[in-house]
């Protein structure tokens, strides 16, 4: 498929999926919490268009877009959000705790960064050629575990891309109240090269990500990619301190509009129809699926592959 069209389709599926999700929440059909990436879709689409399917990805609480761009099925994700047995992790993890193939998420800010760094070390040791990617937000710059990881990733020249999605807010806290000094400076201090874009244009992000990933893959050690972006929706569901004018103003950065302008009307409409119908089908199918049962198993001293005889 044509690159422009493929990127558009990925962003559109993420957008329509998350809009549907919010609608289901509002209708009381979904419970719990969720964080959508509406407005930030260009990051996921651009980055996963330049990675290898075998690369190892650790995403965070705002990870639906990453999962879908990675190649995850909308149906399995919808089922997971509904707590269904057919969900990505059988209804145990929900929105922010999923794992499929080489894709992992956890809802703990900062803690996923050393885990991803350890994954990069493992891939380096095994010489698989895979790289690791980890996603953080501006608010996560406040977590100490991040800096321990940057230090060790740089010391050991690990194949990892640190992706910082600066959507200018951490829940309700604006960056001015949460982040001192310089964002790139935080990586540069460890000798980690920085690619930085203030953009929601997926082509710009694709090219920056392509360069950054290329450096990591060629053994250049850790690299960071900082993308300054905009989140259009609330942090989770109702928590948005921004003024309505501001929410309207940032719509000018809508990645779908920016990139959609590069496509024919026909292509756009076709993509739209495809996205809507595939997501309809995903939610419909998932809602008919069974709920999981609870198996309580106490693994007292179940030693598995015990190949260490003594």
């Amino acid at each position, binding site marked *: 498929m044509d690159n422009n069209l493929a990127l558009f389709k990925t962003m559109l599926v993420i957008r329509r999926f998350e809009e549907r999700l919010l609608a289901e929440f509002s209708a009381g059909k979904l419970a719990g919490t969720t964080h959508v990436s509406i407005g930030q879709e260009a990051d996921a689409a651009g980055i996963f268009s330049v990675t290898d399917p075998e690369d190892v990805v650790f995403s965070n609480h705002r990870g639906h877009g990453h999962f879908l761009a990675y190649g995850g099925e909308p149906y399995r994700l919808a089922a997971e959000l509904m707590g269904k047995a057919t969900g990505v992790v059988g209804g145990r993890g929900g929105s922010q705790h999923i794992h499929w193939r080489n894709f992992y998420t956890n809802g703990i800010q900062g803690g996923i960064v050393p885990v991803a760094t350890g994954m990069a070390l*493992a891939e380096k040791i095994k010489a698989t050629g895979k790289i690791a990617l980890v996603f953080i937000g501006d608010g996560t710059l406040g977590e100490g575990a991040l800096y*321990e990881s940057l230090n060790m990733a740089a010391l050991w020249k690990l194949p990892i891309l640190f992706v910082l999605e600066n959507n200018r807010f951490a829940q309700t806290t604006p960056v001015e109240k949460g982040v001192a000094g310089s964002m790139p400076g935080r990586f540069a201090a460890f000798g980690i090269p920085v690619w930085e874009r203030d953009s929601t244009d997926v082509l710009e992000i694709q090219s920056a990500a392509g360069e950054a990933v290329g450096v990591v893959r060629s053994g250049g050690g850790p690299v960071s990619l900082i993308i300054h972006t905009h989140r259009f929706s609330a942090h989770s569901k109702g928590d948005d301190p921004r003024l309505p004018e501001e929410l309207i103003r940032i719509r000018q950065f809508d990645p779908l509009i920016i990139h959609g302008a590069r496509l024919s009307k026909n292509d756009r409409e076709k993509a739209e129809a495809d996205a809507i119908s595939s997501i309809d089908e995903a939610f419909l199918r998932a809602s008919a699926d069974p709920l999981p049962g609870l198996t309580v198993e106490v693994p007292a001293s179940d030693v598995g592959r015990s190949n260490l005889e003594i």
Partner: protein
Amino acid sequence: MPIVLERLNYALQHAMESDERVYLLGEDILDPYGGAFKVTRGLSTKFPKRVLTTPISEAAIVGMANGMALRGLRPVAEIMFGDFLTLTADQLVNHAAKFRWMYNDQVRVPVVVRAPMGGRRGYGPTHSQSLEKMFLGVPGLKVVVPNSLGDPAELLCAAIADDDPVLFIEHKLLYTCPMSVSREGELVDFQIEQTQGAYPAFTLRPANTPRLTIACYGYNFELVRSAALELMMEQEIFVEIVLFSQLSPFDLEPLFLSLERTGKLLTVEEGTRSLGWGAEVSAEAVERLAGIKVRRVAALDLPIANGKNLEDAILPGLQDIVTAALELAAR
């Protein structure tokens, strides 16, 4: 006469020789220093690429070990002092312990985190604690403690071969203890039973009718058996000892069997008394066996002092165990 330290060192070496997925990470673990307590001595010389000395970054040490474990390696992380496990709590509780279950059993996390614990070395409030109680009862995390009766090498190798995360607690005073098998004569008065499984519990049964059961783990077994000998020699009071290697999740069956014979339980631990291991073991025992009497010996609910006389007053000693046993026997 082998000491516990040598068995632990041997276990690491053996594990690294038999499985190339085993890696060590920790602070100052390279030769010639070989780690603050020398458990890794010699290993960086033998396996220079697989012993990784780290910055002082406990959260990242365990976090990276978690990531390595998720991706097919078998990392063993050393935390220089168990007190610093607080810095790894997020990685142990919210990452290592969670991944398998929350990812619907699609992954395993074969990570081992080793940490020296315990006092009586004069290291003061932040280098002497027994914090393992904070990590008991975390679903998905095993807490295993070696002793001088079972083979610490077997125990550590089993932890490394385990597909789930294991927190391995080593008391600092245990390192220099000779293995019990080599201390001939000391245990002749007991018949020793051992449970099946990788992390066995031991029941030491005296020749005469026992008056109470003492439950303990790790280094405290050294104190408990001295107390048992003293009670036997000087008071003609016979006790059964139940010694655990796996604290969490726990299987108290051997303890219940013993309590059916004695009806009295004394728990001994070096952690603080309130809301601790002994409290939970006692509660389980009382729920299971109506009418038993229980008592706990543990540290006072205070930080551990640096000075020896204060530290001795705070931590439970041999005489505390003997006194508590006598009181319980008399009830």
